[in-house]
């Protein structure tokens, strides 16, 4: 089973992103399940969402405590939220950032996929809508769900501009091995 934890801010689409991943997994013939952490955050506050993908029916209905993958849609969260907590060994970080130089990446993370989604978003949308870009990066970096299905659902929910963003993320993500990890696919 693959477990993903997504971190974003209220209004950035973290929850919908998690649903798109599940949609793709199910359409790919796998099982998927996701749910948001429900706080009471309005626009701007930190939010998170949890995703599971598996070959078998997913039975647990709990938060993801030990993600195989941590997705960070808003880089400013790093200062206030411990996004790495509980990450499994050899897990993946997918993050919106210009560079990972200043990020202290814990040992459990052995692969980092990053993309400057903020900048790209300003280019594509003229405002800050980084989530589909990060989603594209996620699809490329993990290969857990098919790009086609993700793209199909993204189109249905958010329309063509976001496909551009998705593709941007997919194509421009920088994937590096860290902490001695080996990029296995």
């Amino acid at each position: 089973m693959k477990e993903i934890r997504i971190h974003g801010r209220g209004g950035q689409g973290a929850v919908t992103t998690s649903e798109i991943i599940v949609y793709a997994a199910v359409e790919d013939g796998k099982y998927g399940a996701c749910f948001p952490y429900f706080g009471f955050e309005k626009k701007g506050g930190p939010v998170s969402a949890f995703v599971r993908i598996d070959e078998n029916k997913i039975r647990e209905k709990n938060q993801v405590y030990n993600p195989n993958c941590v997705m960070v849609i808003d880089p400013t969260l790093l200062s206030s939220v411990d996004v790495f907590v509980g990450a499994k060994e050899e897990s993946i970080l997918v993050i919106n950032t210009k560079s990972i130089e200043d990020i202290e990446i814990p040992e459990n993370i052995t692969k980092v996929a990053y993309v400057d989604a903020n900048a790209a978003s300003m280019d594509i949308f003229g405002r800050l809508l980084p989530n589909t870009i990060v989603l594209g990066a996620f699809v490329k970096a993990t290969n857990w769900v098919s790009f086609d299905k993700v793209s199909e659902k993204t189109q249905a929910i958010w329309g063509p501009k976001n496909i551009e963003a998705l593709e941007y993320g997919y194509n421009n993500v920088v994937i590096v091995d860290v902490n001695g990890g080996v990029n296995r696919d």
Partner: protein
Amino acid sequence: MKLAERMSSYEDMVGPGITACSGCNVELSMRTALQILGPNTIVAVPPGCMGGVQSVGWADKTGMKIPVFFPLLDNTASMLSGIKKYYERIGRDVNVVAFAGDGASVDAGFQALSGAAERGDNIIYICYDNEGYMNTGFQRSSSTSLGSWTSTTPVGDASHGKSSHKKDMPMIMAMHDIAYMATASPAYMPDLIRKIEKAKTIKDGLVYIHIYNSCTTGWGYPSEKSIDIVRKGVKSRFMPIYEVDHGKFKLNVDIKDPIPLMDYLSSMKKYKHLSEQQIEELQKYVDDKWKNLKTLCEVMG
């Protein structure tokens, strides 16, 4: 004293960070009201945005410097009656105050409020009217205006937003013969401030203050337009600013030359689908209400 000086002399009673949306003029209204009401105040904030944004607190922490609590969505006024009656009994003069949404006031908690009004309980009930249940994601309330999109009066082939007019809560409360009824707008701060100050002095019955707020997230407009929107609401006569002091009606902001209603309606998403007919109905509603109000102010002023 200058307004800024006077207001600076009052301490902010609400904790410095609450998680209301950026630009929320309900946050502004709440902070302002409680600043004026001051430390000798007990405040109820029922479920709704202002409760949800942690103004009551989180876990074992409080959100305010004054006693604050969550009543139920449906019993704000009666809980306050109980508190006030006990303080009256022991001879302590405390401001017992609600800061409650339109859902908590005009819908689920209306009967409790009406009962307190009839008994003449000396509480200060402030209703912030953002025309819907914002905390749960903008569903319709009785205070949602005709034609408005909400998530429970959606727009589609078979539906075109809310089908009935806004319940005229201020007038209904005025007809309860309460001690003091007033409407207010965060766009008209000195007026709003005066009304809260007045409320503090009323000791012979219920005070009801209806603040016409707006909601950047639900209504769909950029956060910086928060004041502009409600100002347009007043200037188009959609949000009439008046008071009824022991039965005497007074128009506080006379809009002699209203801006076109469309200037107001078109400045947000929730009305973007309105049909000609809906706009006409709204215009008629506004005109009728304004006429009635003017008359009442003239004859019962």
